[in-house]
């Protein structure tokens, strides 16, 4: 098939970007979307034109590295990762828009590559269980009801790709944050830090500049791992509980995004 691509090109974080038009021909329906871009990049290179920068790594839908907004939808027309999208989802003659994740806390580095370091900092603010190596009791010391273990697993399958943020009109990372709150909060091992965790992660989420959640649900519609919206309800319940309990559950450390403080001197 022959396609017209309109792709976001931006040379560097501070450069002004624009949509550039490319025509690609003889696209096989069995190619993945990223392989189609590989073929285009090979051609651009041989022509002496700068190839399009985009992120990908495992190309099997699990590492969370890839992520493009395709025709206005995060990861494109199927609810999967961009790397698992194949050209058979498109038709001859289609015009396809390709853009990076758009959210203030995900600044563009180049073309379609963005910086998602904010997600790591949200995890640093409490997205873990404090269990230093060597301190663990026998794995069977604490049984976990299968239902809880399964639901914890479902939430833990989040790959941190950021599609939820890209899809959200508020630019909220609540689904990402809630998935971790739910995973750890459902397990007995996660209980001691349950409330300090939610307060810490939420404070960091807000400090990064992500918007609030207004229950629109666009996030779950694009999430390749189908993290459910109810995780956010769970986060809210834990947050209310934490704040009701009073000061003891405030985060251990203040949010860590120094750049942000510099940008807002007042």
């Amino acid at each position, binding site marked *: 098939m022959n396609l017209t691509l309109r792709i976001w090109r931006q040379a560097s974080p501070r450069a002004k970007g624009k949509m550039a038009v490319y025509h690609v021909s003889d696209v096989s329906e069995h190619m993945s979307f990223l392989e189609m871009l590989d073929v285009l990049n090979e051609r651009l290179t041989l022509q002496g034109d700068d190839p399009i920068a985009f992120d990908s790594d495992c*190309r099997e839908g699990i590492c969370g590295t890839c992520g493009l907004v395709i025709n206005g939808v995060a990861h494109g027309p199927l609810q999967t990762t961009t790397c698992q999208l*194949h050209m058979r989802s498109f038709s001859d003659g289609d015009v396809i828009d390709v853009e990076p994740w758009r959210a203030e806390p995900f600044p563009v580095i180049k073309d379609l590559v963005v910086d*998602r370091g904010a997600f790591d900092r949200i995890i640093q603010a409490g997205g873990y269980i404090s269990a230093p*190596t060597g301190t663990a009791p026998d794995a069977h010391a604490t049984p976990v009801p299968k239902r809880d273990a399964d639901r914890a*697993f479902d939430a833990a399958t989040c790959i941190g790709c950021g599609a939820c943020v890209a899809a959200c009109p508020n630019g909220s990372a609540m689904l990402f944050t809630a998935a971790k709150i739910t995973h750890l909060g459902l397990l007995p091992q996660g209980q001691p830090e349950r409330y300090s965790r939610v307060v810490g992660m939420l404070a960091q989420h807000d400090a990064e500049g992500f918007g609030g959640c207004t229950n629109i649900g666009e996030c779950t519609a694009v999430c390749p791992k189908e993290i459910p919206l109810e995780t956010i309800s769970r986060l809210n319940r834990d947050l209310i509980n934490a704040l009701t309990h009073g000061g003891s559950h405030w985060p251990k450390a203040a949010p860590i995004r120094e750049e942000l403080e510099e940008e807002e001197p007042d």
Partner: protein
Amino acid sequence: MTNSDLLDSLDADSFYVLGADIADRKAPQVPIDRRWYERRFRARLVNPANRRKLDVIIVGTGLAGSSAAATLGEAGYNITCFCYQDSPRRAHSIAAQGGINAAKNYRNDGDSVYRLFYDTVKGGDFRARESNVYRLAELSVQIIDQCVAQGVPFAREYGGLLDNRSFGGVQVSRTFYARGQTGQQLLLGAYQALERQIAAGTVEMNTRHEMLELIVVDGRARGVVIRDMVSGAIETHFADAVVLATGGYSNVFFLSTNAMGCNVTATWRAYRKGAYFANPCFTQIHPTCIPVSGDYQSKLTLMSESLRNDGRIWVPKSGEDKRDPRNIPEADRDYYLERIYPSFGNLVPRDIASRAAKNVCDEGRGVGPGGLGVYLDFADAIARLGRATVEGKYGNLFSMYAQITGEDPYKTPMRIYPAVHYTMGGLWVDYDLQSSIPGLYVTGEANFSDHGANRLGASALMQGLADGYFVLPNTINDYLADGPFPRIDASHPAVVDAVEAVRARIDKLLSVNGGRTVDSFHKELGRLMWDYCGMERSEEGLRKALTRIRELKNEFWSDVKVLGTNEELNQALERAGRVADFFELGELMCIDALVRRESCGGHFRVESQTADGEALRDDDEFAYVSAWEFEGDGGRPILHKEPLVYEYVELKQRSYK
């Protein structure tokens, strides 16, 4: 002079030089079940107050890197950590599907540390070091405890206890799993522990940073040269010890199940600085991957081997038979595994299944694009068990297959083909995981590991975490007890040289401005490696490959086209540097394969087979680890043999007929 000595001397004339034998001197000479205990006791300790004065660099954040960084950070050392991905959570350990072995014996089915040790040595076709494997089996038990404490959501039974399954032909159920995403869940556990230490200030994390050179000062590993992949800045970082946890090198084949970015550069640069590279030709080829569909293919996707429990593998009896598989009658099908290996049938080990598939395709009977595929047929299973049962067991794999190929495996047979997915070879390490360069430690898939010539299923995750959580944090202290070492800075001649070398390479890659892309060279190299240094190797083929790889390497350096500058995010430049190192590695792999004139593990050497065409191991000649020493560009590498001594496991020939 025996015949083989003669051949060795002939080889030595052209490709390599035989050096002195080496041995591991760190494993204590006590009964095997006391060695780790004894080693930990003998290893010198570092006072907690002194640990913060000691700096350790860790490169790579997969299971082996994240777990080591978190644990050493908890212990109080100053850790600086690097990964090429945009987050440590994305390292390729995340893609491991099946599970992790541990000798818990929760099933009461006769499992024990000794049995896991025995299975691993035997599964590795007797090319692994007994001391290391025994320790791995011992530590497997603690790994599960540690991961559960971190909140890894392993599969559980209704009673709330952990579930197990059996894996890869062993007779006990010792594999712990988290649906088909065990690697992801284990990595996220280690990643969260790492992020906790980053927040605590013990670990400094640098993402989108790639190691391009090792800095060795006065015979000790003292730092790394790193390229910031966003700004292009060439940075130097110094430490008292360096840990490489940079994974395997399957991408030398271009097409593999590894992630796009997986590469050999960190370990290869260390090899060039004096670290021995062990068993480079030992790679693992997985039989059940989705076949290649065209030239544009960028990677291969593995599907769990469990499919072979119910699927039947076949090809048409005649290569001319191009009918739709559903219309080919039973009489015209060749269920070749069931025919050749009646007692194991479709469940023969990975290496045998892979080679049989290659053989039928080489005979011209392969199916699908390019004739590189065989059918994996579930029609009988669906008729016997019903579609619902098959869907319950394999539903996620079937939908993955359908998504990638656009075909419905419930209606038409799947097509599968073998693909490279793990490398047992890597930098040589002693019992302490220290390489032949003092202060350079290597963990996980990056070292030559505990898997010998063949890795058992669900053992890679076990090894990565054993190394990172438990082995390294109990051995590196013995080295660091001599530190801190004298301060060095960027003006030290060794550092200046290392930085200069990195800059010169980058400048060269950017200035060639030839007529071929990096990927076109990489694909050609990969094809050579697959054809001549893949499942089946021959003297003739390997010599042909060596000649062609050297030509291709020269063509690369005179005709590659890399656009742009160093001072920007430049993905073609990143790939070019990695492919340049793959050329050199590919050459060493072929030399190693040429020297190892035996069939072992997944490696079939046509000159070494039984009368009925099965692999023939040669323990008299080749029961050793090949450890290669770099001898300069254009020089012949030196082969050091580490003889393998089996005190506990009896050497036996495998048979699956």
